[in-house]
């Protein structure tokens, strides 16, 4: 069925998020992160991805959720933002989910503020809602937000 879209899914706290499989470059374990002083707090810093320097964005901070408990190691979802890979820090990786277009809806009203702008919409899966991430908006933080 052509209306079935595969999504890579991951969790942030209780929420299930999805990114189109085509937009994901790879998923890697937690890496040592070098912080970039003076930058906006959503940026955790930089990681070394086989010689390429990749900017990491902590999605918890991006969605204005509370920080991960100390000691909990995030996973890196590497997505393509234009030509540039960007790593999104998430709590836990879920399955690849095939979602039918007929279950798609605009962002739910419960999502407010910044978060709402970063979501393309939701799929009503059987067990939960899948929030589809807008990669360009999520990664599109200019230097302007730096301190």
């Amino acid at each position, binding site marked *: 069925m052509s209306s079935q879209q595969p999504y890579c899914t991951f969790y942030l706290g209780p929420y299930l998020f999805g990114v189109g499989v085509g937009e994901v470059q790879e998923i890697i374990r937690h890496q*040592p992160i*070098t*912080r*970039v*002083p*003076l*930058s906006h707090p959503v*940026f955790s*810093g*930089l*990681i*070394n991805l086989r*010689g*390429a*320097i*990749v*900017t990491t964005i902590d999605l918890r901070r991006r969605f204005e959720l509370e920080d991960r408990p100390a000691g909990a190691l995030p996973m890196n979802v590497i997505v393509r933002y234009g030509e*540039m890979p*960007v790593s999104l820090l998430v709590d836990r990786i879920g399955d690849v989910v095939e979602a039918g277009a007929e279950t798609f809806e605009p962002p739910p009203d419960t999502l407010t503020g910044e978060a709402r702008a970063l979501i393309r919409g939701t799929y009503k899966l059987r067990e939960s809602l899948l929030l589809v991430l807008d990669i360009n908006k999520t990664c599109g*933080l*200019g*230097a*302007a937000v*730096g*301190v």
Partner: protein
Amino acid sequence: MEDNQDIIQEFVAESLDGLTAVDHSLLELERNADQPEHIKNVFRVIHTIKGSCGFLGLGKLERITHAAEELLSQARDGQRAMSGETVALMLETVDVLRSLFQSLQTSGRENLISVDDLIARIVRLQKTAPGETPVPTAAAVTPGPAVVSHGAGDDFVRVHVSLLDNLMTLVGELVLARNQIVQSSLLAGEAGASNAAQRINLITSELQESVMKTRLQSISVIWGNFPRMVRDLSLACHKKVQVEMEGAETEMDRALIEAIRDPLTHLIRNAVDHGIESAEVRRERGKPETGLVLLRAFHEGGQVIIEISDDGNGIDGARLRKKAGDLGLVGVEELSRMTDAEALSLVFLPGLSTAQAVTNISGRGVGMDVVRTNIEKIGGTIDISSAAGRGTVFKVKIPLTLAIIPALIVSTGGDQYAIPQISLLELVRLSGEQAVQAVEMIHHAPVYRLRGRLLPLVYLNRELALETVPGAESLQDPEVQIVVLQGENGQFGLVVDEINDTQEIVVKPLGSHFKGLHAFAGTTIMGDGRVALILDVPGLAQKAGLSAGLSDTLRRSQSKGETAEPVRHSRSLLLFEVGRQRRMAVPLSMVARLEEIAVESLETSASRTVVQYRGRIMPLVRLSEIYGGETVARDGGALPVVVYQALGGNIGLVVDRILDIIEDGWSAEEETPHDPTLHTAVIDGHVTDLLDLSKFTERHCQGLVGQSRERSPLKQEVA
């Protein structure tokens, strides 16, 4: 046609190279027609192009080159002199050819430019009576090496730049892997492994060097076009201009060469258009009629220096200043403080041009700021010096390569940072007592006295807003690590937690998310695989406010350069205010310390004001009481005190405000009538009294220190 594209692109690249050589030869011929080897060179290139056009079905190119070849063959065979007319027509031909090739390069086909007129003119010239003075020797010339050889011969291979770029990236990776291997083999301590690691280390270094060399190009790649450009420009401006080049073989990284092409072109255009005067004016001024634009390139200390000078008008600092004031680009007060030499750097402000008339070549006030921006973008700098009526010199400094650089690794706040070695001057480590005392404060700005010069200090952890490691300040053995750096506007000391080692690092760009921070120049990967940030030294200096104040003064004195100035003294002065208005200064070398002394701690002893200072009693002299001036009323707070040593002890001069440190450069010092302790000078645009400390001590401090010694038991009483 598709199949031909690769061949065509290669043909275009070769031909464009060839045309540059033709330009060169034609210009030589324009100066002196009797140079058969140049005629042969031109003929050879045109002939080659014609041959290939036939194969590739490029009609226009073939027709032009055919006509040109006929004309050139007359010259080659000595039947025609390469007179001005012939050369001019050939130069025009080269332009048309170039335009056709450029169109081929971008669109894969010849453009719509009409060539019939040109061809007709070539044919007409060819049919006219051959030159009055045939060149008899031309036919008899024995074949010799071509004057300018371009990629000729079997020893050269044309390689696509993207391949070299890729090689460079791979070598970069290899260097990183090498660093990791070397580090872990050192830890493991196995003889076999560490031998192998050592070999890999050496081979990698050599490989890296070779690959870097493949990317080097001589600067003649861009300079080659300049003589032609200057010729055309000078014709258009009705001037006589000659270009001379020194060091055209100087090599630098390809990427950098491309990056400086436009800025250099702009500078040369300016030199011809605004710099060089018309022949009449030059004659009146007693200069040779033909103006000179001199290009020099050479290596110096890991950098490439390119100088562009002309012997023309020079830039009038006063006029620049007026213009900048009229346009409101710079505050009136700031302008009034500048000397004419300092005002020269105003040319780099956006929107400023001193051209009296806007010509179609330059003078619209766009450009010099872009020139500077472009040069700074690749880590270079540009300076200007000029003498009115004698000429202008632009000095451009460019790093040799950008990809792999030696760097010093430091730590602060638990993270490692790399500092490009190019801005590194020295390292200073202060420990124990020294660490506590050596850092002094001038007006809330920390400084360290480095061999008698005051070095402004910048704390990396503060600039980067890092939390300080708790307990660091209460350590038993405090240490201060200072990295002395050459900032854009002078030296400064960067205080870090730890100095690690030096390494060759591979520079990788910083993601676009962090572009606005101005603290980092890039990133790199350390031996352990972690990412480290490369500090942007000029950016940090600017962040720390060093571009103003202290180092601003330094820069101003440096930028004065060699231009004619009245006799200048070179020592550092501490500048302070006495009373409300009076500016005074003492030589910095005489100053022991600068202190802020709490008003409450002042005591009176035998009608002198004293203070306990380092376990002794130090007399204080209020300068405002001696030199008049309205004393600034102070209720409590701290008094700025300049401490100097005399008469076997310390004497404190109470001033009202510490202003600045002035490095090198003030003028016209003269003795003040009626007061032997003072000299008057103009510093920074203000009349300032220089205090002669030895005469001052003689006159005003006799007995102060001696008495305080006798009374030293007092110290115990109070303490």
